[in-house]
Every structure is written in C-alpha cells, then in structure tokens.
C-alpha cells in the first residue's frame, strides 16, 4: 500500500514539476510531510540539506531519500527501503520521460518544418535571457556569503566565481575540474 502511494505521489510530483528542482521542493514538502505524514519537518529539512550537498538532480536526490526514509519509518527492513527509494526515483521520472520522448520524436521528424524553425529562432535568444536571469538570481547571500559577515570570504567567493567564469569561457578549462578545484579551495580556506 505504501509502495503504491509512493508511486502515485512521486509520479504526480514528476509531472507537475515546472521550473526546476527548487520549485519541486515545495510540492514534495506538501505531499510527504503535510498530506501523508511520511516524514517529520526536521527530516524534510535534513533531506533538503543532504540533496543540496550531494551530486545529482535535486528531484532524484529527494525522491530517493524520501522513498528510503518513509519505508523505514513504516517499520520495514532495509532491503524494502532500498526498493522504495528506487521506486520513488523511477516514479518521478517516467511520466515526463514519455512526454519528452514524444516531443523528441516529433522534433526529429519535423525539424525542417518552417513553423518549427520560426518558433526556435525566437526561442533561442529567449532561453539565453532565461539562463542569465537564473545566474543573476543566484548571486545571493546563500551562494556568496555577505560582506557584513566576513569581507575576505565574500571577496574570495567573488574571486572564485570570476576565475571559473574566465577559465571555462576563455581558456576552455574542464568545468568538472573547475568545480573540484573550487571545492578544494573551500576545504583549505574556510
């Protein structure tokens, strides 16, 4: 019963998720904490913290963790919880996967249609603005610290950001390498 519910709830979260992982979190909160009582408030906060500090899409991270924790909280053994976590992760993916594949199929077979070309000619400039906005909105206290707390660390954050920007754009440094180096700098300095 719990498994069926996990499947249902995470399928729903997967198909109603517009606008990225963070928008998904409020949906996951209302479904898992408020409606179904699978998790406590504190457990949910933990999951968000863990999802943000582990690699992987935040939707998959939270689905895996909620799947595991809710099954354990219901008194099942660990192997069942592992099944629950895999089930929740697949549930969050499958509906949007079918939708995406359908669109891919259409685009690949109609990519030379005039209307498709016209629509994408306008969408390409727009998506640049969209991503630029995302970058601007992330230039906040959570990501850079604040000069009120510590000026050197704030300056260092900006320095790391500018360095990665120049390194990847101008010198074609591997972005994965850039992320790792910044992480190591963080380990040493902070």
């Amino acid at each position, binding site marked *: 019963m719990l498994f069926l519910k996990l499947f249902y709830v995470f399928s729903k979260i997967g198909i*109603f998720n*517009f606008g*990225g*992982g*963070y928008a998904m979190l409020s949906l996951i909160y209302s479904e898992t904490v408020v409606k179904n009582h699978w998790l406590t408030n504190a457990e949910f906060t*933990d999951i968000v913290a*863990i999802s943000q*500090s*582990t*690699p*992987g*899409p935040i939707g*998959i*991270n939270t689905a*895996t*963790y909620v799947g595991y*924790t809710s099954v354990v909280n219901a008194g099942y053994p660990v192997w069942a919880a*592992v099944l629950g976590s895999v089930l929740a*992760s697949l549930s969050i*993916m499958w509906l949007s*996967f079918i939708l*995406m*594949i359908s*669109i*891919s199929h259409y*685009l690949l077979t109609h990519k030379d249609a*005039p*209307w498709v070309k016209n*629509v994408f*000619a*306008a*969408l*390409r*400039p*727009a998506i*640049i*603005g*969209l991503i*630029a*906005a995302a*970058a601007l*909105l992330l230039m906040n206290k*959570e*990501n*850079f610290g604040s000069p009120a707390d510590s000026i050197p660390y704030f300056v260092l*954050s900006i320095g*790391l*950001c500018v360095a*990665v*920007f120049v390194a*990847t754009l101008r010198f074609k440094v591997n*972005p*994965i390498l*850039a*992320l790792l180096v*910044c992480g190591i700098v*963080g*380990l040493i*300095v*902070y």
Partner: protein
Amino acid sequence: MYSVMLLKFFLTCNKIGAFTLGGGYAMIPIMEREYVDKNHWLDREEFMDIMVVAQTTPGIFSIDMASHIGYKLRGVWGGIVGALGIALPSIVAILLIAIFFHNFKDNVLVEKFFRGVRPAVVALIAAPCFKMARTAHITWSTCWIPLVSCLLIAAFSVSPIWIIIVAGLGGYLYGRVRDRKQQQQNK
C-alpha cells in the same frame, strides 16, 4: 559497435549526473562539452533547442536532455539508458548516505567544500550565455529578446514558462507574416 556506443553514452550520462552540483543549469557547460564537443551526438543549435524543450516540459532538466539525445542515438531504449544514466549516481550516493552516514549533513568538511563550489556554480550558469549568443545568431535587431526576457524574470518575477510561450508564439507569427510578405512580393 551498437552496444559500445550505448555504453559510452551511459557512462557519459553517469559523469554528468555525478557532477550535477547545484541544479541542472550549472551543468550546461559540462553537457555541452560532453555531448557536443567531445562526442558530436548533436550540434550546438540542436543542443540549444533541446534546452528550450527540457526547460518547458515538466521533469528534471538534465534527464530530459539525456532522454532526447539517447532517443536520437538509439530510439526509446537509448532514451531510457540516458535517463537512468543521469539518475544512477545520485540514487547510489543518497542510498549510501541514508544507510551509512546519517550525520553526513553535519560534516564540516562537506560544508566547506560546498562553500567553495557555490560561487563556481553561479559562474558555470553565467558563462554559457555568452557562448550561446553566437549560436543563436544574436544581432542588434534581436538582442532585445534576451535582455527583456532576463529583466522580466529577474526583476519582475515573471515565470520563465510565460517567456517561452510568448517567444515561441512571437516567432511563429513573425515567420508567418514574413513568409506572406515574401509571397506577395514574388507575385
């Protein structure tokens, strides 16, 4: 040959999934490098088009991207390989943490590492905008489109979905008007 390519695609997706730190947008440079530059599974324009589709449809950005590329390479099974390839590293990482490392989030080292990573993530989101401007053939007559889109979202909290709908409709109507004019001139 058939399976070698799918295996390579799967491993590439693993790599992208494993380094998705701080949301899908930050992965754009990594995806571009792996999918476009290294493996030539699609060209830069198609990459941008799929980004638009992945952003517009529900679901997880990097998984949508991988599903499309997989589908293009090897049909539905290719798409499944791509989607699972992205998801696998995070499922494994989270399970390990859930089962063995309950105090992972309180780890000081993890926190320090991510304090260094976070500003870099912002740079990785900003950087592709300049590269993509070339791919999208931005000119003086079209540069207002990204500027206005950016302003509406960042300053006026307009949902990106609306920007995409309006831009798509605008492109469609503009194309129709232009084609009609050309037909009239040809007559």
